[in-house]
């Protein structure tokens, strides 16, 4: 077991008091970044990068990757408490996390989210430790057609799971696709749907839309029922952590499924956001509690969090071995590596053993440190709900405005956020589901690019999506997922009639 020896060596590199201190600092900063919408992990790492120039590469990357873990953890906090996803991959966490908080189970939801994140990351790190070379080769198999098949699978595993009227679901999803199409078309370099407005050149940013739709929209909805948040009476104490942990083992199947989805999406690199949606969708389809998803089911928090964190961690693997970042944050980390003269690529694992194994060891340690830090904050964050509405509401609105502004340093985006806010309010009241729209917005243009790149390559031949074993099986799986829900409903009906 070469890996074990290398890993132990890595621990000896990473485990110095100084590095441990950096881990705590990094995780705390990361949580802060994750909590503030707009200040994404990528942003945070980029900004703090210069701070680390005086450190040696191993210490620096430990601190930076801990910021990354912290941001992954932190994204869940505002999703659960205020329905505002601090990061794109926490959108799926709002689906059940926020209803749980409204019922006074915020502490439980937060604990489950953090613990699931930890488990997801742990599985991914184990994979990186033992399977890195094999897995890196697997990632090379992914060309445009495979990417498209993966995106198709994400859509298919998620579609058909809302209870909203089907035509409203279609409208909502198409709106997401239309918004995603705005801006420059990658394949032809033409401007689409911009109508000569320069603000529209950059397209609609996903974060602006979710801050508006979910955050502002939710505050407006809450207002109708008076000036208070629901769920303020929930119990808050340290025991909640232990109590929630007792419930977790029974969801082991969901955890395994989500970990697998996350690892795979992180490597390919589909990224954490599709992974979280797919994790949630698959869990909903497969779980016996699937029907209750969306009403505050603990499993609905676990599934996306495990997947998102596994993907976020696994995304570091293609970055290290191939030099392609699996996420924007990984891209900035990549920039960091270059500054230290470490060029990520196939040779990094052989030429920079200290660095690579130090980093992998810090992934284990950083996650443990992260879990400890965030779990101690559970009562603190759950207590925020008890702050009077007339203080919290304006502060949230200010945070939303700042968040929307920081994404592109543009006031136009702040206005856009308000428009999305009103839209979120109206849509929710009229039963237009928001999730399909958000999913289409985040994956729409990527799916389209992949499809058209594949078409360019095959000369317009659609059968290319079945042209080899890998792409064929993903496509078939996607189609199977698409028909799973109606088939299961039909089977259920027939059984019902039979009995």
């Amino acid at each position, binding site marked *: 077991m070469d890996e074990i020896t290398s890993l132990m060596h890595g621990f000896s590199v990473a485990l110095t008091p100084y590095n441990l201190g950096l881990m705590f600092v990094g995780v705390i900063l990361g949580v802060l970044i994750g909590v503030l919408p707009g200040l994404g992990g990528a942003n945070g790492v980029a900004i703090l990068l210069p701070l680390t120039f005086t450190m040696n590469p191993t210490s620096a990357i430990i601190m930076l990757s801990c910021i990354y873990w912290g941001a992954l953890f932190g994204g869940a906090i505002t999703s659960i408490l205020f329905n505002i996803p601090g990061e794109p991959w926490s959108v799926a966490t709002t689906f059940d996390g926020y209803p749980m908080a409204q019922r006074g189970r915020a502490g439980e939801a937060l604990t489950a989210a953090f613990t699931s994140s930890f488990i997801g990351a742990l599985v991914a790190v184990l994979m990186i430790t033992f399977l890195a070379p094999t897995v890196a080769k697997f990632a090379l198999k992914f060309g445009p057609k495979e990417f498209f098949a993966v995106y198709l699978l994400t859509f298919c595993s998620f579609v058909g799971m809302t209870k909203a009227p089907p035509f409203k679901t279609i409208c909502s999803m198409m709106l997401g696709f239309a918004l995603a199409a705005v801006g420059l078309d990658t394949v032809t370099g033409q*401007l689409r749907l911009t109508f000569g407005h320069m603000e529209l050149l950059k397209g609609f940013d996903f974060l602006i839309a979710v801050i508006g739709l979910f955050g502002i929209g939710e505050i407006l909805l809450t207002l109708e029922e008076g000036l208070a948040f629901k769920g303020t009476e929930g119990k808050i104490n340290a025991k909640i952590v232990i109590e929630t942990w007792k419930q977790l083992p029974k969801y082991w199947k969901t955890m395994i499924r989500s970990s697998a989805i996350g690892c795979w999406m992180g490597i390919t690199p589909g990224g954490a956001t599709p992974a979280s949606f797919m994790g949630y969708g698959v869990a909903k389809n497969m779980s016996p509690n699937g029907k209750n998803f969306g009403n505050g089911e603990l499993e609905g928090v676990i599934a996306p969090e495990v997947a998102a964190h596994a993907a976020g961690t696994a995304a570091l693997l293609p970055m290290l071995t191939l030099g392609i970042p699996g996420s924007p944050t990984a891209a900035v980390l990549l920039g960091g590596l270059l500054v230290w003269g470490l060029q990520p*690529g196939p040779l990094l694992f052989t030429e920079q053993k200290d660095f690579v194994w130090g980093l992998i060891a810090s992934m284990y340690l950083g996650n443990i440190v992260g879990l400890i830090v965030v779990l101690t904050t559970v009562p603190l964050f759950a207590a925020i709900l008890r702050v009077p509405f007339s203080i919290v509401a304006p502060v949230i609105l200010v945070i939303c405005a700042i968040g929307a502004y920081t994404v592109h340093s543009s006031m136009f985006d702040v206005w856009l956020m308000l428009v999305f806010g009103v839209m979120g309010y109206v849509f929710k009241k009229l039963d237009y589901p928001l999730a399909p729209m958000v999913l289409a917005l985040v994956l729409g243009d990527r799916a389209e690019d992949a499809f058209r790149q594949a078409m360019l390559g095959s000369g317009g031949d659609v059968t290319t999506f079945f042209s080899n074993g890998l792409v064929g099986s993903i496509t078939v799986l996607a189609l199977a997922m698409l028909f799973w829900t109606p088939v299961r409903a039909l089977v259920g009906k027939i059984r019902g009639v039979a009995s």
Partner: protein
Amino acid sequence: MNVASVSTLQSKFASRPVSKLQAKFHSTLLTTIAASIACALAIAQHTSAGAAEAWKPTKSVEFVVPAGTGGGADQMARFIQSVVAKYKLMDQPMIVVNKGGGAGAEGFLDVKGASKDPHKIIITLSNLFTTPLATGVPFNWKELTPVQMMALDQFVLWVNAETPYKTAKDYTDAVKKAGPSKMKMGGTGSKQEDQIITVAIEKQSGAKFIYIPYKGGGEVAVQLVGNHVDSTVNNPIEAVEQWRAGQLRALCVFDDAAMPYKAKVTKELSWGDVPTCKSQGLDVDYKMLRGIFMAPGVTKEQVDYYIALLKKVRETPEWKDFMEKGAFDQKAMNGDEFTKWLTKEEARHQSLMAEAGFLAKK
């Protein structure tokens, strides 16, 4: 990169206990506040005393990258930022901001709109010319203030190392033999430098590719390793690691002379050993600008400040390593010479893109 000097720093820091580190955070905060107050006083003095002394930034400088994270321009910008931070070349921090929307139009329009703002600089690549030409976005380089050409980026014709092609001619012959639109050329973006070169190769050799646009250069190199495309025209820095690992083969460089770097990069070859495409019968010559610009309407003093700053950056050993690693053409110029070069280059892009049919429909 100077790892030795970094590690001495490390040993200095390694003994520092955690509490001190946190204390350092607070003290940075305090000094920053103090600095900003001092700064305010400085402005007040400055305005009263007139512009007697040379201009200096009075707040943090925004370094705009008109491209996404991880690409060549982004790498260079973040590299410059790190060098400036490491040698404390500027009293104020430099912040890299990516504004890559609309093939960089977002960034260019942002700087164009920040008239007379001396705290904003932008790094450009060929999209300085190609984006307005291809999309019709109302923008021209003359609306910015040229500061300094940092280097020119080379382009190399790459194929997968598993393929039998040893020379550019082998490859173009194979493409011709395969028939039109059979072999795939991967590149970054549409109607930008990579596609311009592809069209030029087609014109010269008579071969016909399928051009497949991707979002970033790193992605393109990996697609070539995975055999999803047959060739690429990546910049050296985008594909150097795959070359070193023996996954890719460099066929030729699109320049009139071979690259000057003699140090071995792979086991057998240096950048200098890559032949020019011209010597292989493929007369295509294309290099990409890596230059720094400022907003319109800034004073000469302010431009001079950045020219001096960037000169210091270019003199560091880190910069030299970076240039060598990426096999850049270290041509650097500013002032009138730079403006003339830009004018010529714009005309060249205009004609290249007109020939290729890439100009935006009016």
